[in-house]
């Protein structure tokens, strides 16, 4: 039993490692095509070569991230069966459909991305070429939708009956459209769009901060910051709905995130703080009634506490910090994008102020950190379950040995891929700057 615990633990570490690495590229993979399409569309409509070059340069960098996203996506796809064979054998009977759909969406995206990249200037009508981006966006966003549906199913499984280890009465569509699906899908999509916008904004801000006054970078900064504002507001709204979902269907996850132990109405929202030995919250910022309002839209709404659950079915309490950090970063980023919109409207020169640009440079990195933290919160907050209420994580893991060696091997692999992408991307854009390319085009 000890041995199996160890292997389950290493299986978790390896899955965490793969996903922590993959999620960066997956997020960019979902959001950046939309940003490329925006730039490409504006460029065509306004006959603005700056925006067209922007689309072209973004798509060049995007290929590198797609490549790493594809191979790490293949890795996690196979690791699901290699590390969690017992889980896949059980869950596969109910939730194989969206997994299967995901490969189609991904196939669709891969085909049209290949065509888009290699057909600049090949069509007489440039809108045909732009049109190739639409299946890319549909494919990448639908990939995210289908994979998130599988994750939603792990949080709120339904559409089957389990008796003595045998699954019966299977309804694949009911399983797909479980209560967690709408908010999870919306949250993953909007946060991916938001993060990609901030990552691209960081790049533009970096060039402006380094002293380039070229209108190309200003246009890039403007487009990305305005997109970031729209998607941050969307993400905040969806976040509110996610809170309501948790309160209703997964109260233990919300209770752990909020250190809310006793079932209570008029529940406050607890921000940060520490727990003492008697599990009392100290030094936290409490916003009265806020948790009740988040869950039930009124100050007197009842919020179920963690003590309602047996001890071995409670998520670890450190998820509180993950939750708070994710929300804090989200609010900060939304504020930053809002400030940009206000400055550009009323005090233009302050939008290129050094300090504002410095904050903008780190916005992409912060957004990625929020993605990582938010995802860890979503997964750890479901523990001890891999399939909530049906299968515990430890029961789903592989029974074979050597997962620890593989953990090291994959660690090296991801280090090599990460370093490789950074080196290549830097080299690509340093040797061939936007300014040089514009000059070549006679602009």
């Amino acid at each position, binding site marked *: 039993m000890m041995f199996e615990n160890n292997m389950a633990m290493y299986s978790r570490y390896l899955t965490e490692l793969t996903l922590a690495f993959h999620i960066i590229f997956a997020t960019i993979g979902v959001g950046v095509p939309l940003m490329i399409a925006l730039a490409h569309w504006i460029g065509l409509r306004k006959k603005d070569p700056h925006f067209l070059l922007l689309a072209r340069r973004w798509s060049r960098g995007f290929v590198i991230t797609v490549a790493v996203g*594809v*191979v790490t996506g293949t890795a996690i796809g*196979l690791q699901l069966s290699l590390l969690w064979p017992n889980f896949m054998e059980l869950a596969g009977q109910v939730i*194989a459909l969206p997994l299967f759909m995901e490969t*189609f969406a991904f196939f669709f995206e*891969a085909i049209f991305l290949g065509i888009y990249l290699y057909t600049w200037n090949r069509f007489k009508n440039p809108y045909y070429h732009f049109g190739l981006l639409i*299946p890319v966006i549909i494919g990448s966003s639908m990939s995210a939708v289908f994979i998130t549906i599988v994750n939603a199913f792990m949080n709120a499984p339904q559409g089957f009956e389990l008796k003595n280890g045998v699954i019966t009465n299977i309804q694949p569509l009911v399983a797909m459209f479980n209560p967690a699906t709408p908010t999870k899908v919306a949250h993953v999509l909007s946060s991916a769009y938001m993060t990609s916008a901030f990552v691209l904004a960081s790049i533009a801000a970096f060039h402006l901060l380094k002293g380039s006054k070229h209108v190309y970078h200003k246009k890039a900064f403007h487009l990305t910051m305005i997109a970031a504002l729209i998607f941050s507001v969307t993400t905040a709204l969806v976040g509110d709905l996610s809170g309501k979902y948790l309160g209703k269907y997964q109260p233990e996850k919300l209770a752990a995130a909020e250190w809310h132990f006793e079932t209570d109405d008029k529940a406050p929202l607890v921000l940060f703080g520490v727990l003492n030995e008697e599990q009392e919250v100290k030094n936290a910022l409490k916003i009265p009634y806020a948790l009740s309002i988040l869950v039930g839209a009124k100050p007197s709404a009842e919020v179920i506490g963690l003590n309602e659950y047996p001890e071995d079915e409670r998520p670890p309490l450190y998820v509180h910090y993950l939750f708070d950090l994710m929300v804090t970063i989200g609010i900060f980023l939304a504020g930053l994008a809002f400030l940009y919109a206000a400055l550009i409207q009323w005090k233009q020169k302050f939008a290129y102020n050094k300090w504002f640009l410095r904050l903008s440079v780190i916005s992409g990195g912060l957004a990625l950190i929020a993605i990582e933290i938010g995802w860890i919160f979503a997964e750890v907050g479901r523990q001890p379950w891999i399939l909530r209420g049906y299968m515990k994580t430890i029961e789903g893991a592989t029974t074979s040995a050597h997962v620890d060696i593989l953990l090291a091997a994959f660690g090296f692999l991801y280090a090599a891929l990460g370093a490789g992408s950074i080196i290549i991307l830097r080299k690509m854009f340093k040797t061939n700057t936007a300014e040089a390319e514009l000059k070549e085009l006679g602009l």
Partner: protein
Amino acid sequence: MSLELLGITVLWIFLFGYVIVASIDFGAGFFSMYSDISGRKDMIHTIIQRYLSPVWEITNVFLVFFFVGIVGFFPKTAFYYGTALLIPGSISIILLAIRGSYYAFGTYGMKNNRILTFLYGMTGVFIPASLSTVLIISEGGFISVKGKHVKLHLLELLTSPFAWSVVLLAIVSVLFISASFLTWYSSKANDYKAGALLRKYTLAWSLPSVLSALVVVLSMKTHNPEHFENMIQYSWMLILSILFFFIAVFFFYRKKHYGAAFLSVVLQYALAFFAYGTSHYPYLLYPYLTVQAGFTNETMAKSLVIVFILGLLLLVPSFLLVLKLFVFDKNYIQGK
């Protein structure tokens, strides 16, 4: 046709698709590296790049499609193969990851980097070897099952003549299929220098491909007599396969009809692949798992089939578009 038979047939067709497109890709990497080492890089490098650049990502998806499909239709394979293949499967993932990303790095970022060319070439040989372990294990004899525990006997696998004969066949076939496709592709590009060199590679790897296949069949006789006996019943397919092999070699030798020659190579492998697959039926894993016992429930199977048909309606036209733009477009191939 029963649903489980339909499911495994569709998956087997897709796996064959992967075998062909991936072989072209893997072999191209190897030839690219080999020509670099032997100082003839300029001759075939352009041809290989022009074909591979738009399609490398699609190749990978064939593989993903196959393994997601098989776990969907036959969830028990996740339990048996998932547990047993932890090590060989992970090795394949790592090699595929290195290959895919370093290909992109080399093509879009650091052109003509020797380390990247080397990695790209060597993984082209090691990936087919590591992936072929799945088929080797499926013949039984390398894993034992006790209740919920599946154990892979790695030492027996590594010392088995049968296993090594399959590995040899995989590598040789990759090089033969790839060289024959690229010969055709360069003839369409009117690149006669590259064509002549690739034609030599094709002929060089032709006989080894058939010989290694014979070795596999013979060593299967001792390793898995039951499967061997079944396969003999489909010997007409194997004979046809060899016939197409001779047609292909004849055309390549006489320097004509390269299109038909490559098609014959595809048919040669298709017949052998389906003779092997059909005689493997009903076992997914000798002797533990059959297609019937491993099958998912009927509701899921039906929805998977519906999604599959809808998916094909979407993908086949898109795929034809790729072929039209990059494989059958003379101007593109000739670099105009």
